[in-house]
C-alpha cells in the first residue's frame, strides 16, 4: 500500500509508520511509505521511501500542499498525528479529496475477511468499527502502534508551499510549567473534592513521595484555575498512559476517564461510593480525601522508612 505520513515532529512520522506497518501486516500487503514534515528539521527516518519537507505554514497551506503530493504520488492512505493541527489538516485533505476519515484510530481488528479500523466514541465508553477501504485519511495517537524493523533509507525532497487564504498572524507560547503529564509514569489526579487551592499541597506531597506528577480534572484547571492546563487530564487536555493513576476527589466525567484509560492501574479515592470513577478503577477507597490522604501519606512514609 502507498501511504503518506505527515506531521511536524519526527515522532509523528514514526507513530504513523507504526500504524501503516500494523495495518499492512493485517492486510498482507507490502508498504511504500512517504513522509511529509512541515516546519521542522528533516531527519532520516528508516522505512520511508521519500521524505518531503516544507516550512511551517497554516493548516490550510499544509493541506493544500499535501493534496498536491497525493495527486502526484497517487496515495491511498494519508496518516497524521491525532493532535488538533493534525485533525484540521487531515479533515481538510479528506474534504478536498472526498475521502473518508478516521479521527484518532484506536485499533485495527479483523473479523472474517474484513479488516476494521476502530475508534473510541461516546467519551470512550464505546468503540466504533469501520470496514477498512481506500482512499482514507487517519489520525494516529502517539506511541499507539509500534514500529518494527524498517530498512528503507529515504530520499529527501523540498516542497513549495501552496498558500491559501488563512494567514498565520502570530504564534504565542502557552503558559506552561515543566510538567509533561503524557510522559509521567505515576500521576495523582485532583478534582472538585478539594475545597481550596492550598489543600492541593497534600496531593503534591503524595506525588513527590511516589516520584510522580500532579494532574487534575477540568474544573480545577479551567474553572478554578488552581493548576495550569498542562496538568489537565481530558480528551481536550492531556492523555495519560503511565503505570499508576490515583484519582482523588474526582467523580469521573467521561472525558476524564477516557484520557486516563491507557493507565495500567487506576486507584480512586472519593467519598461518594456511587461516583462513576469507581467503575473505571482497579482499587477504590470510599473515604473523605481530607481524612484519607494524610493517613495514606503517613503509611507510605513509614513503609519507605522516611
Amino acid at each position, binding site marked *: 500500500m502507498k501511504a503518506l505520513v505527515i506531521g511536524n515532529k519526527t515522532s509523528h512520522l514514526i507513530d504513523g509508520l507504526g500504524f501503516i506497518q500494523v495495518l499492512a501486516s493485517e492486510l498482507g500487503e507490502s508498504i511504500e511509505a512517504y513522509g511529509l514534515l512541515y516546519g521542522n528539521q528533516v531527519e532520516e527516518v528508516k522505512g520511508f521511501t521519500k521524505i518531503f519537507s516544507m516550512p511551517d505554514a497554516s493548516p490550510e497551506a499544509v493541506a493544500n500542499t499535501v493534496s498536491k503530493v497525493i495527486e502526484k504520488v497517487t496515495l491511498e492512505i494519508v496518516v497524521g498525528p491525532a*493532535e488538533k493541527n493534525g485533525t484540521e489538516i487531515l*479533515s481538510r485533505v479528506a474534504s478536498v479529496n472526498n475521502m473518508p476519515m478516521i479521527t484518532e484510530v484506536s485499533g485495527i481488528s479483523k473479523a472474517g475477511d474484513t479488516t476494521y479500523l476502530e475508534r473510541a466514541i461516546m467519551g470512550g465508553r464505546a468503540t466504533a468499527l469501520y470496514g477498512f477501504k481506500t482512499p482514507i485519511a487517519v489520525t494516529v495517537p502517539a506511541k499507539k502502534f509500534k514500529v518494527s524493523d524498517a530498512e528503507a533509507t529515504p530520499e529527501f525532497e523540498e516542497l513549495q508551499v501552496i498558500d491559501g487564504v488563512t494567514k498565520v*498572524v502570530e504564534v*504565542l507560547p502557552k503558559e506552561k510549567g515543566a510538567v509533561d503529564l503524557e510522559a509521567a509514569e505515576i500521576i495523582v489526579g485532583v478534582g472538585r473534592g478539594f475545597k481550596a487551592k492550598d489543600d492541593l499541597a497534600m496531593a503534591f506531597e503524595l506525588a513527590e513521595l511516589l516520584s510522580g506528577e500532579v494532574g487534575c480534572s477540568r474544573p480545577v484547571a479551567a474553572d478554578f484555575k488552581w493548576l495550569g492546563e498542562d496538568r489537565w487530564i481530558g480528551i481536550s487536555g492531556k492523555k495519560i498512559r503511565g503505570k499508576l493513576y490515583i484519582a482523588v476527589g474526582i467523580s469521573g466525567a467521561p472525558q476524564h476517564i477516557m484520557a486516563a484509560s491507557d493507565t495500567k492501574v487506576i*486507584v480512586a479515592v472519593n467519598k461518594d461510593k456511587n461516583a462513576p470513577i469507581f467503575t473505571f478503577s482497579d482499587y477504590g477507597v470510599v473515604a473523605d480525601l481530607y481524612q484519607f490522604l494524610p493517613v495514606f501519606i503517613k503509611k507510605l512514609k513509614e513503609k519507605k522508612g522516611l
Partner: protein
Amino acid sequence: MDIAVLVKASLDVNMIKADSEGRILFDSIPLAISEYDRNAVAEAVRIKGELGGKVVAFSVLTWGPVDKRAREIENVMREALALGADEAHVVVDDTILPGDVSVTAEVLSNLIKKTGDFGLILAGEGSMDMMSAQLPVRIAYKLGYPVATFARKIEVINGAVKVTRDLEDVLQVVELPLPAVVSVTGEINQPRLPTLLQIRKSFAKPYKAYTISEIGMDAPEKLFPFDDIKLVTVSRKNMIIEGENLEEIAEKLIDKLIEEGVVRV
C-alpha cells in the same frame, strides 16, 4: 452580520444503556445538546451583541428513530434558543439515519444556504457522541468558506475574523476573510444556564423542521458509515478496599500497589 451556529443533538454519553449481553440500546439513550455547542451558541450571542444581526441555530438529526427523536431534537434546539439564538432550523429525515459526517455536512450546508447569508458559522470543536471533529472543516469546504478550528478566542475585525487556536503546545493566531467557519473549544467562554424566563421565551421563537426533500435534496450517499458500535467493557478490577479504619485501608492499598509492581518502597 448574521451568524449561524451548528448544534448537535448528541447521544447523552452519561446515559449509555446496554442489555445484559453488552449490546448498546441506542434508542433508549436520550439526546442532549452537545457540550461544546453550548459554547458556540454563547460565542455567537456575544458577537451578535457587538455587531448586531441575528443568531440562527442549525441541526441535523443523526440518531433515530425519527418519531421519538423529533421531539428530542426540538428540545435540544429550544435550549440553544434559550441560550440566546433567535431561530432554529433542523432537518429530520429517516433516510439519512444514522448520521455520517459527510452527509451531515452536505445537508447542513444546503440548509444554511437556503436559510440566509451568514458572515460567520460557529460550531463546537467536536460532538460528545462521535467526537470526530471533522464536521466544521467538511462543511466549510462544501460551502467554499475558509475555516479555523479549536478557537479559544474570536475577534471580528473589518470583514475578517482573527482566531486564536488552542493547540497542544502553542497558541496559533490566524486570520481569515469572512464569511468563515470557526469551531470553538470549551475554554472560549462559560455559558450560563438559561433562566426560566429565557426558557419560556424560547418557545415563542421560530423553530422549523424540514425533510431533505423539503430543502431540495435527495438522500446523499454515505461516505463512511460505521459497521458496528461496541460497548467498551472495562477490565478494571473494581475492588473497593475495606478495613476497620483508614490506617488499615491505607496499608492494604499500599500492599496492592506493591503487588501490582507500580509502587516501590
